[in-house]
C-alpha cells in the first residue's frame, strides 16, 4: 500500500512546483472536500488561488482561497475515483499542494457511512 502511495505521489511530484513555507492539507467530510492552508510561521494566508486536478492532470476547477485560509468544494465521486491534486498558490513562490489519494477518499467515505 505504501509503495502504491509513493508511486501515486511521485507521478504528480514531477509536475508540481517545489513548495516553500506554505502548508496545504485537505480532507473529506460528509461529501465535502475541505482545504486548509497556513504558513509555516502559523499565519493564515488571506488570499490565494486553488486548482483542483484529477489523476490525469486535468484541471477540474479553480477556486479562490477564503480569508480564513480555507476553501471547500463538493466531492464528485466519479471525478475523484483516482484521487485529487489540490494546488494552492498564494504568490511570491509560496505555493504547495496536497494529494487526496483514493485511500484518503475511501477512508473518509467509509467513516461517514
Amino acid at each position: 500500500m505504501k509503495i502504491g502511495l509513493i508511486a501515486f505521489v511521485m507521478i504528480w511530484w514531477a509536475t508540481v512546483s517545489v513548495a516553500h513555507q506554505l502548508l496545504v492539507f485537505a480532507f473529506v467530510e460528509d461529501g465535502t472536500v475541505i482545504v486548509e492552508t497556513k504558513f509555516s510561521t502559523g499565519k493564515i494566508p488571506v488570499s490565494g488561488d486553488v486548482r483542483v486536478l484529477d489523476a490525469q492532470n486535468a484541471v477540474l476547477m479553480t477556486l479562490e482561497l477564503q480569508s480564513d485560509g480555507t476553501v471547500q468544494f463538493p466531492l464528485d465521486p466519479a471525478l475523484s475515483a483516482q484521487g485529487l491534486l489540490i494546488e494552492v498558490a498564494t504568490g511570491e513562490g509560496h505555493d504547495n499542494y496536497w494529494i487526496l489519494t483514493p485511500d484518503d477518499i475511501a477512508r473518509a467515505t467509509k467513516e461517514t457511512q
Partner: protein
Amino acid sequence: MRKTLVAAAALTAVTGTAALAHYGMIIPSDSMVSQEDGRSVELTLSFSHPFELDGMVLETPVSFNVTHEGETSDLLGDLQAATVMDEPGFMLDYPLDRPGTYVFAMEPQPYWEPVEDSFIIHYTKTYVSAFGDDEGWDAELGLRTEIVPMSKPFGLWDGNVFQGVVKLEGAPVPNAEVEVEYYNEDGSATAPSELMITQTVKADENGVFTYAAPSSGWWGFAALNTADETMEFEGEAKAVELGAVIWVHFEDWTGE
C-alpha cells in the same frame, strides 16, 4: 597477545556487572512523516540498554498516550505485544489524521533494580511531525518529570545541538544530570571506553542542557532525579528514581 585476551576478558566481566543505563524507549518509524510517506506512523515501545542492544522486559505501561493540538488521547488499549531486542515490548501503528506535532508519552510501571537498590520510573516521550507541520514541537505535557525541548526535537542534522529544559514537578531542575545514549540499532557503533556508551551532561542553573550529536540516528536523553517519596520492596522503603526521557532523531548531513 595474552595480555590483550586477559584484558578483554576482564573488560567483558566488568561490562557484565556494571550498572548500565536503562532507557524507556518510544521509537517511531519516522520522526517527520510527509504526505509521501503515508498516513500513519509505527511506534515501538521497549525498555533496554540501547547502545548495547540489551533488551529488558517492558511490562504493560501505566499509561501510553498521544498529545496533538493540545488534546491528549489514551492509546494504552491499542498497544500490540511485540518482541523488541529479544524481550517483550509493544508496537502500535498510529493513524495521522491531521498535520502537526504528535507527542507520544509512556509512563511505565516502576521497575525494581536490585543493583541500584531502588525503583526506576522513566517517563518517556518522543515527538513526530506530520505532513510538514511542526506546530506543537515545543509542547510541554505536564508529566511529573520531563525534558521540554528548546531545539525542535526532529529535523536536526547530525552535529547539531539538542537543547532542553529538565523539569521535575513542573519546575526546572538546576544542574540536573542528563545521560545521553545512542540507539545502536544496527550494532555498528563501538565505544573505545565504557564511559562513552552513556555520556553525561549537566544542565545550567535554569535546568537547560545542551548536547551535540556526533552522528545521525536516534539519541536518548534521560534526566534522572530522586523522588521525595519511597516505595516498599520486601518490607523496606526504597528510593525511586524518576527519569525524564526524550528520544530525538538526527538526520544525515547531505552536503559534501
